[in-house]
């Protein structure tokens, strides 16, 4: 069903929308963010002014944005999708040519003192764009080659631009988001089968080529793979982060060392402890129990997104909600797998916890879209 097909008069208007917001989701998001403030306060050695205070300000701004987005009817956002997508592609281009260097990669542009990371934005606009595309597309054409290639191109454009920054982690997530929305829209399994088997055979070929005359990648690249598979082989170099992160997580034990008692984070053994590796601080200070509780909170956020999507009959809304939920999940899963030593170290923040303005704002706006879809769902 498209919004054109349902009667708008059943949708709440004005301040009554407040009653129809998905409140459990808002509470959960706030709760997870609050855990983040706690962690940032602890890592700074009990100081608000270093990270936690600023993070709370960003959250407050983001919450206002979220509510604003939630109050605007979802069909407005649907109509904005193409524009938003084009704007974010343009911003990616701007970053490519005029962006500032951060961590050895061009990632942000500064507009009036605010750092914008267009790559963060692109994740949401891509979901919007694809959702709007499939809302528009005749369902029968979904699996036809031409109509499959269009969303592939729509996904590949921002992916390539992000890859050129270079930001491998975000590029990967963009690809996965694109694939996910296409999968949810009902594109035939055959396409996925071909792509996945293509990837698998490429990886197999690369690994099998090692040491032979037709070796496909450089020796140093193989060594990087080795380090990933066994970080202890390079404990002071590439393996350092991952070893220290695991020590932090493991030494927390069942109940943790206690709030502000984490030695790994307090004594700076943890790299990026307030950004990508913030989860390790929580693991160290609150142990398995604390971390497990956090995982439950994250899982609940996903569950409520799912419930909202299942209640919704609008195709754009469903794809949007599930696409954003998938985006959220990819962040989460890659970050956690990374800090636990299950995945290579790529620069992916932990949603709502890691210190950083852009990611937080974009995520809250995205959840605003979910709220808007929820409030304005056909009844």
């Amino acid at each position: 069903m498209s919004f054109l097909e349902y009667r708008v008069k059943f949708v709440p208007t004005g301040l009554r929308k407040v009653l129809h917001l998905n409140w459990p989701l808002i509470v959960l998001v706030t709760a997870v963010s609050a855990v983040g403030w706690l962690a940032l306060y602890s890592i700074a050695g009990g100081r608000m002014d270093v990270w936690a205070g600023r993070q709370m300000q960003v959250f407050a701004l983001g919450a206002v944005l979220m509510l604003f987005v939630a109050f605007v009817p979802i069909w407005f956002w649907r109509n904005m999708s193409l524009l938003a997508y084009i704007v974010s592609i343009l911003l990616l281009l701007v970053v490519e040519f005029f962006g500032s260097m951060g961590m050895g990669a061009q990632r942000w542009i500064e507009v009036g003192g605010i750092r914008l990371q267009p790559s963060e934005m692109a994740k949401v606009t891509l979901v919007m764009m694809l959702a709007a595309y499939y809302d528009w597309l005749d369902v029968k054409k979904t699996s036809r080659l031409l109509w499959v290639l269009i969303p592939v191109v729509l996904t590949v454009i921002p992916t390539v631009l992000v890859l050129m920054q270079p930001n491998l982690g975000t590029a990967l997530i963009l690809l996965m988001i694109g694939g996910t929305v296409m999968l949810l829209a009902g594109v035939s399994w055959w396409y996925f089968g071909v792509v996945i088997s293509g990837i698998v055979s490429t990886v197999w070929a690369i690994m099998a080529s090692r040491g032979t005359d037709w070796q496909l990648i450089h020796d140093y690249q193989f060594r990087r793979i080795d380090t990933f598979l066994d970080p202890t082989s390079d404990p002071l170099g590439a393996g350092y982060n991952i070893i220290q992160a695991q020590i932090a997580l493991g030494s927390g034990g069942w109940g943790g060392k206690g709030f502000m008692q984490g030695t790994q984070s307090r004594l700076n053994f943890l790299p990026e402890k307030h950004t990508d590796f913030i989860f390790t601080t929580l693991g160290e200070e609150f142990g398995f129990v604390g971390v497990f509780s956090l995982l439950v909170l994250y899982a609940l956020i996903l569950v409520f997104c799912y419930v909202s999507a299942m209640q919704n009959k609008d195709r754009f809304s469903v794809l949007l909600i599930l696409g954003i939920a998938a985006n959220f999940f990819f962040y989460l899963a890659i970050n956690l797998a990374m800090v636990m030593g299950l995945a290579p170290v790529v620069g992916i923040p932990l949603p709502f916890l890691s210190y950083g303005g852009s990611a937080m704002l974009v995520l809250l706006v995205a959840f605003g879209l979910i709220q808007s879809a929820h409030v304005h769902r056909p009844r």
Partner: protein
Amino acid sequence: MRRSPKETEDSARVTHRRALLMGGAMTAMFAVLGARMRYLSVDQADQFKLLAEENRISIRLIPPARGLIHDRNGKVLAANEQNYRVVITREDAGNVDEVLAKLAHIIPLTADDLDRTTKEMRRTSPFAPITVADRLTWEDLSKIALNAPSLPGVSPEVGLSRQYPRDTDFAHVLGYVGPVSERDLEALESPDPLLRIPKFQIGKIGVERWLEDQLRGRAGTRRIEVNAVGRVMRELEREEGDPGSDVRLTIDADVQNFVQARLGDESAAAVVMDVTNGDIIACVSSPSFDPNLFVRGISHTDYNGLMENDHRPLANKTVQGLYPPGSTFKMITALAALEAGVITVNTTVRCPGHLEFGGRRFHCWKRAGHGAVNLEKSLSESCDVYYYDIAQRVGIEKIAEMGKRFGLGIRHDIPMSAIADGIMPNRAWKQERHKQDWRIGDTINASIGQGYVLTSPLQLAVMTARIATGRAVSPRLVRSVDGKDVPVPEAPDIGISEDIMRKIRSGMFAVMNAERGTAKSSRIADEALVWAGKTGTSQVRNITAAERARGVISNDQLPWNRRDHALFVGFAPYANPRYAVSVVVEHGGGGSTAAAPIARDAILRALSGGLPPLSAYPASQRNRIESMLQKLPLRDADGRAPESTRA
């Protein structure tokens, strides 16, 4: 655009189905993450906890204070002084160059200091304190403290460093300490971790080296919490170590000082030994050097100066200097012959001034000859021919055996560096060393302490002590460690009949006191202290037949390093021996003129417990001795050097 309800429903169903599938995948991922977390923080928790502790806790050593070294009366010979340093910490200093410039106005800093500081700073962490200047005076330190507010990041620090208050007197005995080198570490099987502390001092030579284990002490430990870059966050635990043991030597610092001063600028060595227990009372090698220079890190100029000096100040001549004993060896030859029974105390030999043997002529020092010579006369007038004769009768093996019984050619184990064994030659030795057969001529040379015989001043002192007591006295240098006396082993009897020993001693008595004794001018006049001794003059060059025909060139006419070594050994009092002394003056000329007077002054100093009493000297010498003694640059009661010689 209108869609058929069926299409809409179909597509919604596909989406729902796939969403559920994705939800399943997400759940699986959550399960994996949860299981991994459980593995890390529950199953492997103990291991990771240990690793986290290892990360955070670092153990630092607290260096112990090095044991002090005292003389036999408790005077301090090696002390630990407070070493004031000024350190700078980059992160606290802010503008380092500015702060250093200010500091240079307050205390004297060389361009070298500043250069080294800035260089070091580039290499180390911003919070690591770097030493700007070492060994500051108390005044400089208080100036820094006073100006502290304008010197951010600068702080004074105190450490301990070795200091030798009687610098030159004990350079050879004590040796010195210095920073641990790679070579020091390699020499040790399992080096004490203490030695890895930067600038930790270790004994390099002498007593400092050989008693290193006792002097060093045991390190304390500090368990501290450090962060990832090594900055100390706090101290968790502290365990104090044990300071090193104090060592008391047998040496009397005042006697040592007196003898050092008495040797003056000569290249010489003297040993004074207590014959009753082997205590070394003085052990002096001259010229000396200031060991404090080495502790601080000696400059190239100073070091080259010491190395190029032909009097070899760095060598400890008392134990590592080897000299032909010359006539001081004659007692050994006589003892060998007497004990073997080849002569009696009354046997006489006619001395015509030389001995012909195998076409070679061996000369007596007195060209005219001594006429009929018995044992006593052979010693008092030091007749060479007498010994040429009896040595042939007794043979080198018995002489060498006797020499070793009296402590020559064997190593005496005292805690000093580079102790030489000396050489007490016999047939087997020459065969091994020179691959040649022993010849009678070698025996003849050896009989008067020339040829292959080489002895150190310490060995000569031991020999004299053994002659004086008839016991196999062994030298010792350490009186007590940590307040516990080192036991004196009972010296075994030397195993020679007292009749023979008495005869030898009376021969040595005649050397000093007989009308024609070679060292009569160095006799002791005091009835209670009269003494016995033996002079020696050992050649360091061959005298050719041609030169002998022209007349032997006197020592005064020769360059310094071609002159004879002057030797003297003696003991006092003759009636009841207390001290033995040996003196070697390199290239000093005759033993009676160059060595014996020094030996007398040294032994009188030891016997009297103060400056040698003039009454002990023959009346005719007293004026000369008095002015000589007055001019000696002796230290005051606190061990301070006299003004004139102070650096």
